[in-house]
């Protein structure tokens, strides 16, 4: 019992009034027990705030953990080192996973945040290296930061077990050449990312011969991140890795870790291409947890106008800050992070100085205690924030999904979700950051008027009892298979008979795909004694032409102009290529941790933005428009009754940023606007276009505006159904409503449905005579998703009809028919969308002639 109780040390220090730790784990979750508890104080303040409305509260009792001895297959020195770190006994799931692994199984551990998942691979890898110094392990993380974190943690443990016996190194784009050589030759553990594995390690496998020959474990952390097209690519990178390992005579075991998703075993088995054993369960000791869902108070019920969402979040965080509860605030956008950081610092400085005059000491203190953390900050700043968080110097950190993955930030008492993150899995993952060491914890979800938030407001229990989403990949997508087979053939000749099993593709399918490459002149067939082999033609690295995460453009750097006329200053931040027009146009206010900079000049070809520090009392927001232009038809096409049709199409997606708005801090009123002069971003892709019988549709829905609204609703449902049917992430697909009669040559424009920019009135009205739904692939060039939609169009329509019909709402909700255009009434949205979907089904299905 003594061993277990060490895990509650944090809980005791947090509860000054509580008599002993026994009361913390009795688990009634009643506020009475914790009268002096700062969390209870904060809850009381939040629930009594007039600006907020409580939606729901849910108390989870404390859980006692289930423990087991560390399996004796682990090296005694490893068990001893773990015991010295206060882990004399293992969690039950850790012991079970290590047992499975020792029996030679591939294992996936899908347990909540902070359940000691990293021990499940650290301990067996250490044991393997101690038993045989030639053993090697490859750790794959989705980001460089995670790899570096884990290598540091592992070095500390390995140094404790047997100094100098087990070396670990990161191998990524930032690793200098001599360290790369050392990593290849000497490191027992190499931590890398899938992109590096694909582009640097596998194509140069001769240099890695010793490493691959000794490979005993492959670790795939955050496996739930590898979904959609990216996941399908990663699945093939792993298959190529396994094939080369087999050639070098090793058969590494997989240890995958995943956040809670609905299908961890199935997902990881598809990623790895072989059966895996799942270890699930949440028998981790946890303190009592309170879920609180509040929303900004409704000001005008008829129009649905609410108090400002940022203001509501600020009030909630303010209560936690005053109560001394260490809090992370997860925001949906980077801009929201900056706004909150700024507001909270102002509040903190005011509270601390207790005077109305500016107080530099208090302001400096506030800057230290209230931090921002998001993508785009330079690595140094992010490291510093992480360090300060671990050291306990930070009271509040405002962040985006950047802190969602397992970056070590120490203990948090409360998590505030400023808006529903869009999926139950992400909400769980973010909420799991609270109460790391078994203390009492609080998760507050602050809802605004976003459609996703309204969906949660209607059924708040999804946050604690809802089913989490599935992760889906499609490793049999020819657009993924064929390029990776070419890379594989470059690494070593393809042998359809011998490689089929390790590549998890049927022998004849593998041969067919190889023949496809032979026809294109990429491979040649060579007859050998043991059957045909396919070898790569020519030199070069085919892997360079395959990008796992989609084509990359160079990032922009934000440079502060040091002095007058200085051409370059020092780098403040990095901004993604696609985001640069939104945040770095001339005149934009670019905030970094609450400090405002004005963009003076944007040098587009050089990918540089020059800024200077200003004391602005406003921020800027770019106005974006998404346009979809039909370029031409593309087989196959299917013609139905009355001119209804479903066909492939080439489309061009253009994002235009015509101007920006200046918005005052706090009041959020628009105080001015200006033009933006940046190139439009555009890409071509493939799409599926479905047009119902116009006459029949007009008869069913005579009002043009309502007709378009109905088609928009149907499009929303079709998108999710299509994503489900093609086993990709909904984010990989876009939908648009367009004028289905428009001759493609004339370039029909469409109203795209995108959360970032609402559909435009003129495009909607133009489409009203003969509206069609366009489902397009959001990968430039198309990743073949449109083909999947066309091939399974019947299933897609049926799925969409089921989605709408079985949705629990009465008249349509953001979950089934989406938010709809703001100018149309959506009272009958659900019924109208069903009408459109029925028309599509009836007009197209019975005829079925393929042209």
């Amino acid at each position, binding site marked *: 019992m003594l061993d277990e109780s060490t895990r509650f040390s944090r809980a005791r220090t947090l509860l000054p009034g509580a008599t002993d730790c026994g009361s913390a784990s009795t688990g009634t979750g009643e506020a009475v027990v914790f009268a002096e508890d700062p969390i209870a104080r904060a809850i009381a303040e939040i629930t009594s705030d007039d600006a907020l409305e409580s939606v729901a509260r849910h108390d989870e009792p404390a859980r006692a953990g289930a423990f087991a001895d560390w399996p004796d297959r682990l090296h005694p020195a490893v068990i001893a080192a773990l015991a010295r770190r206060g882990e004399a006994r293992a969690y039950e799931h850790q012991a079970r996973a290590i047992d499975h692994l020792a029996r030679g199984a591939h294992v996936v551990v899908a347990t909540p945040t902070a359940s000691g998942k990293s021990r499940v691979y650290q301990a067996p890898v250490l044991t393997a290296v101690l038993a045989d110094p030639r053993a090697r392990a490859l750790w794959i993380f989705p980001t460089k930061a995670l790899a570096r974190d884990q290598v540091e943690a592992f070095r500390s443990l390995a140094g404790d077990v047997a100094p100098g016996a087990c070396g670990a190194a990161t191998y990524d784009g930032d690793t200098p050449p001599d360290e790369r050589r050392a990593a290849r030759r000497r490191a027992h553990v190499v931590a890398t990312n899938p992109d590096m594995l694909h582009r640097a390690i596998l194509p*140069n496998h*001769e240099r890695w011969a010793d490493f691959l020959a000794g490979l005993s474990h492959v670790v795939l952390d955050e496996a739930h991140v590898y979904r959609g097209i990216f996941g399908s690519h990663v699945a093939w990178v792993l298959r190529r890795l396994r094939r080369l390992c087999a050639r070098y005579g090793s058969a590494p075991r997989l240890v995958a870790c995943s956040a809670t998703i609905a299908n961890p075993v199935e997902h990881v088995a598809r990623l790895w291409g072989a059966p895996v054993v799942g270890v699930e369960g949440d028998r981790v000791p946890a303190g009592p947890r309170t879920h609180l869902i509040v929303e900004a108070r409704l000001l005008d019920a008829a129009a649905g106008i609410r108090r400002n969402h940022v203001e509501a979040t600020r009030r909630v965080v303010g209560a936690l800050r005053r109560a001394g509860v260490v809090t992370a605030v997860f925001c949906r956008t980077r801009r929201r992070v900056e706004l909150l950081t700024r507001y909270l610092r102002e509040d903190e400085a005011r509270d601390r100085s207790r005077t109305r005059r500016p107080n530099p000491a208090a302001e400096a203190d506030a800057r230290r205690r209230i931090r921002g953390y998001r993508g785009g900050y330079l690595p140094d700043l992010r490291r510093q924030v992480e360090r300060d968080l671990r050291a306990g110097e930070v009271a509040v950190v405002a962040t985006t999904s950047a802190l969602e993955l397992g970056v070590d930030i120490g203990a948090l008492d409360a998590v505030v979700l400023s808006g529903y993150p869009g999926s139950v899995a992400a909400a769980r993952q973010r909420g799991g950051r609270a109460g790391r060491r078994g203390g009492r914890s609080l998760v507050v979800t602050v809802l605004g008027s976003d459609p996703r938030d309204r969906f949660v407001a209607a059924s708040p229990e999804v946050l604690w009892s809802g089913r989490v989403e599935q992760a889906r990949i499609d490793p049999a997508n*020819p657009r993924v298979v064929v390029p990776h087979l070419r890379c594989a053939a470059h690494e070593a*000749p393809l042998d359809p008979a011998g490689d089929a099993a390790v590549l998890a593709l049927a022998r004849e399918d593998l041969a067919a795909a190889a023949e496809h490459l032979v*026809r294109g002149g990429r491979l040649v067939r060579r007859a050998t004694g043991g059957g045909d082999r396919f*070898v790569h033609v020519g*030199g070069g690295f085919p892997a360079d032409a395959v990008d796992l995460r989609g084509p990359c453009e160079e990032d922009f750097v934000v440079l502060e102009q040091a002095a007058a006329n200085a051409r370059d200053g020092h780098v403040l931040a990095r901004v993604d290529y696609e985001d640069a027009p939104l945040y770095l146009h001339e005149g934009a206010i670019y905030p970094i941790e609450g400090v405002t900079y004005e963009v003076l000049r944007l040098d587009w070809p050089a990918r540089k933005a020059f800024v200077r520090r200003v004391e602005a009392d406003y921020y800027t927001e770019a106005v974006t428009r998404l346009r979809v232009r039909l370029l031409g038809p593309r087989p*196959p096409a299917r013609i139905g009754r009355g001119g209804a049709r479903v066909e492939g199409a080439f489309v061009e997606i253009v994002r235009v940023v015509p101007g920006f708005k200046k918005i005052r801090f706090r009041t959020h009123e628009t105080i001015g606007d200006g033009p933006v002069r940046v190139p439009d971003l555009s890409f071509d892709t493939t799409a599926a276009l479905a047009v119902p019988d116009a006459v029949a549709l007009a008869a069913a829905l005579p009002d043009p505006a309502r007709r378009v609204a109905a088609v928009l609703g149907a499009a929303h449902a079709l998108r999710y159904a299509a994503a489900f049917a093609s086993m990709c992430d909904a984010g990989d697909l876009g939908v648009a409503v367009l004028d289905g009669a428009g001759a493609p040559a004339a370039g029909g424009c469409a109203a795209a449905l995108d959360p970032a920019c609402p559909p435009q009135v003129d495009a909607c009205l133009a489409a009203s005579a003969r509206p069609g739904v366009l489902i397009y692939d959001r990968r430039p060039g198309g990743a*073949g998703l449109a083909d999947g939609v066309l*091939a399974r169009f019947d299933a897609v329509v049926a799925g969409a009809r089921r989605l709408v019909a079985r949705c629990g709402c009465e008249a349509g909700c953001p979950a089934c028919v989406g938010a709809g255009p703001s100018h149309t009434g959506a009272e009958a949205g659900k019924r109208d969308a069903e009408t459109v979907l029925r028309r599509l089904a009836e007009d197209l299905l019975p005829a079925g002639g393929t042209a």
Partner: protein
Amino acid sequence: MSAFAERLARYEAGPPVRGVSAAGAGFEHRVMEAPGDLPQAPGLAPLVSQPVRRAVYLDVETTGFSTTGAALAFVVGILVRDEAAARAHLFVLWDPGAEGPMLEAVRDTLAGAMGPGAVLVTFNGRRFDVPLLAARCGRLGLAAPPWTPHLDALDHARRLLRYDLAHRNLSVLEAHLLGARRRGDVSGAEIPEIYEAFVASPCTKTRAAVERVVQHNRWDLEGLCRVAGALAGIEAAPRTLGQAVGVARRLLRRDRPQAAAELLGPRVAAERDRLARCRPELAADAACTLLQALLRSGRPGDLARARALAAWAGRHLPFDDRPARLLRRVAGACL
């Protein structure tokens, strides 16, 4: 038809790579007599330290510098020199798809030429030609050709001509050792582009450019043959002090310090004062090498000679503390 095959049928292939016919033995194996005045193989003996009856010279022209499988060897030249004749085999890959059959032919030629008394001679082959061909064979699933014994002329050129030449690439060596200069040769940097241009659009013009690369390869082979012969001559009878230092180093590596001391001793004594003024780094290296030889030789009187040499170095080469350190470390242990 499986579900995957159906999807594959709908997947549009990119445009086929132009100029590449997927099948056929698209490589050429030319055999030609080499000039009769090329040096005889037994002359290489000083560099190989074993009797040599046949020398097999190898040189490849490639599409890049990667030795892990990304660069393609599209011209492989092999020159076999034995007592009777000198014969060159030139392999030209006109169709990248025929790389496998070509490498098999290369392997057969090498295997036929190598054997007892034969040595493979290359220029930078230890780091480039051999690993590149090995990697390509591995990528194509072929067994690798025999590589040993292997004499890399660049290693010896670096050792013997370290103080004579600033650069030691093949054309510099040809000019320095043989007084020969090539006319109308392609430069090495152009070669990858020439082949890429040919593969992209095979026509008379691009094919002619590849023929120039083949000619370049042939010159390289003959040049390598003559340069290796000249290097062996230097090894047998070094002319300058710098060359003698190179020879002495090899003698030390092969544990013959007395021979090294005998070779260097008189030359250092004769030239050291002049060199300490005009080429101090050569004087210092020569002194260090001789000092090592003297300290390891064990002959009576060599220790005293070493002390005297170190004292001289301390006076004339004050910037370099290696002689003093050597003396302290080795002599300190002896005394």
